[in-house]
């Protein structure tokens, strides 16, 4: 969509109290037995197993890739995860290790996690990561510009990165922990989807709070509305720590009941 055809004034307002009330309904659902098993397996098959530390080494990435392909050696019917997510300089290691498996390689780019760099550098990095073999690019939006109301800047940046991605999928990280309000989360979601995101993702994992249920719900509703408007189904990626199992379940039931693809 052309930037001129898109207006943030079409984004509905979000009432935080209303969102929290809806969320409390989800958290009271009882998810057990087959529902629990199915949810666990489905969730696992959508996980991006991620290591984004300054101390990452080829060895650690190889180990992570093995885990991604075989989450559990005793239970072979446990599905492999969707992707392994690393910094661009480790893409090649991951790609080589994962060769022959269905697990994709995702790379963070665009001066992750802050996004504090020039567009030229961000596009270069994106192209380089794709050239190294990344199937997916996780970009971050320029939160400073977004919060300053420079929506056009953010839109153009996403569109440019999308172009630089070529055939690679683009995940747009909104970093909702820095967006202050749910109104902003909704606007950023609408903006990212119209600018070309294949997935919208809550957070980098470097900022607290990361994915929360209210944020996830607002993003899912944006995805649903976008689908009705354009026929295009955008993916949802809540970035949550694996240990927070209950949160996973709640997000899961929230997603399942909105019939939106999760990642």
């Amino acid at each position: 969509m052309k930037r001129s055809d898109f207006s943030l004034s079409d984004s509905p307002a979000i009432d935080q109290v209303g969102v929290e009330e809806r969320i409390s309904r989800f958290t009271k659902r009882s998810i057990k037995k087959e529902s629990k098993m199915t949810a666990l397996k489905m969730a696992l098959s959508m996980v991006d197993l991620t290591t984004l530390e300054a101390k990452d080494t080829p060895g650690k990435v190889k180990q992570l890739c093995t885990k991604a392909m075989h989450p559990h050696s005793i239970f072979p019917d446990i599905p492999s995860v969707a992707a392994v997510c690393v910094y661009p300089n480790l893409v090649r290691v991951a790609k080589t290790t994962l060769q022959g498996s269905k697990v994709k390689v995702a790379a963070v780019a665009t001066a992750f996690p802050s996004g504090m760099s020039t567009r030229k550098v961000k596009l270069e990095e994106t192209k380089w990561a794709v050239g190294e073999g990344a199937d997916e690019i996780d970009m971050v939006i320029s939160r400073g510009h977004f919060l300053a109301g420079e929506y056009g800047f953010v839109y153009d940046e996403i569109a440019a990165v999308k172009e630089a991605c070529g055939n690679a999928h683009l995940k747009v990280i909104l970093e909702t922990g820095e967006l202050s309000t749910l109104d902003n989360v909704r606007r950023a979601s609408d903006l990212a989807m119209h600018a070309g995101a294949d997935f919208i993702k809550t957070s980098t994992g470097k900022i607290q709070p990361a994915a929360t249920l209210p944020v996830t719900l607002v993003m899912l509703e944006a995805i649903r509305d976008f689908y009705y408007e354009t026929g295009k189904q955008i993916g949802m990626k809540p970035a949550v720590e694996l240990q927070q199992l209950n949160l996973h379940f709640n997000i899961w039931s929230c997603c399942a009941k909105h019939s939106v693809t999760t990642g």
Partner: protein
Amino acid sequence: MAKKQTKKTAAIKFDTDWTYAPAPESKDHIRLEEKYDLFIDGKFTPPSSGKYFETINPANEKKLAMVSDANEKDVDKAVSSARNAYDKYWSKMPAKERGKYIYRIARIMQERARELAVIETMDGGKAIRESRDVDVPLAASHFFYYAGWADKVKYAVPGASARPLGVAGQIIPWNFPLLMAAWKIAPALAAGNTVVLKPAETTPLTALKLAEIIRDADLPPGVVNIITGAGATGAALVNHPDINKIAFTGSTDVGKIIQKAIAGTNKKYTLELGGKAANIIFEDAPIDQAVEGVINGIFFNQGHVCCAGSRLFIQESIAAKVIRKLKDRMETLIVGDPLDKNTDIGAINSRMQADKIKQYLKIGVNEGGEMYQSSCSLPTKGFWCKPTILQMFLNHRELYKKKFSDLFWPFRHSERLKK
């Protein structure tokens, strides 16, 4: 605002391969008698007629217990026991002591909250999620709250000194059986009155459980009397000469009858009658949350709420979008076994009520209303209604002219609004 072309897209599919597994609340721990007598003068006493009637579970039409049918004689016994308790104990007791008894009721209610919630759901059809999280805790809260008022009410109004009226006759509806009993009994006791309460004939069980609690709380005999029966029992209570006050929550029609019956007497009254709320959505509203408000407004407690938001007015510019979102949301409502912890909408309270809803839906459709119901499947036994929207235009007034305001329905009537 730039108008966007809305492309035709396939509707969202809701029959995903992931569903909630059944999660029924256990009913092993509840105690229900085969047969309930009348709670008069602190004891369970058989009805003088010897007549009992069935109370059933509206979700499967199975009998839960037999309940006494109180006649005029029983009403008279209950009223004189309340009068006696008022003269002998309750009016002589220091207010602080009254407060202690009311606290005690609240505490025991909390202790038996799970049992009360399950019985409320079985007898009335409402989802356990609601009886567990709303009805029972709120009912206990009311007793706690009014316990605190007992020794303060005297000083509440500057320049006036509040005093008890004497014996209160209280008649309550079936939509929030235990909560309504709490609303009525707790303030009456706190103010120093004694009580004869009649629960609705379709939902008497939690009131009878409350009678057990009141007995166990060791209230002086006759301070609270709970008698069961249908309209005739209520009429006998209203017309009893030794009643000082009638408190009624229920239909407008019955309210009018009560008002006529006590006109010219010294009886005081409170009537809380039918009324239906309207929701109005304008184009700048937070639409998804507005939709959620609409959903809660009408589908909470199967729409059996005197102020349920059963009418919806939408600004024309967003009408189609809001209706679509409502339909989507209705698809996700879980209708079925009220004891299942994931159920959103339980059973309609009684056959009579279910028939009435069907009848009004028919009227609406005959008048040109466009009806939409969610695709959920309903259990074969019991009384049910699918979540429904009836879209009409403003000139379809017949539905309102009928006894519309008294119908508790889980369907929503929506109109488009031109600004």
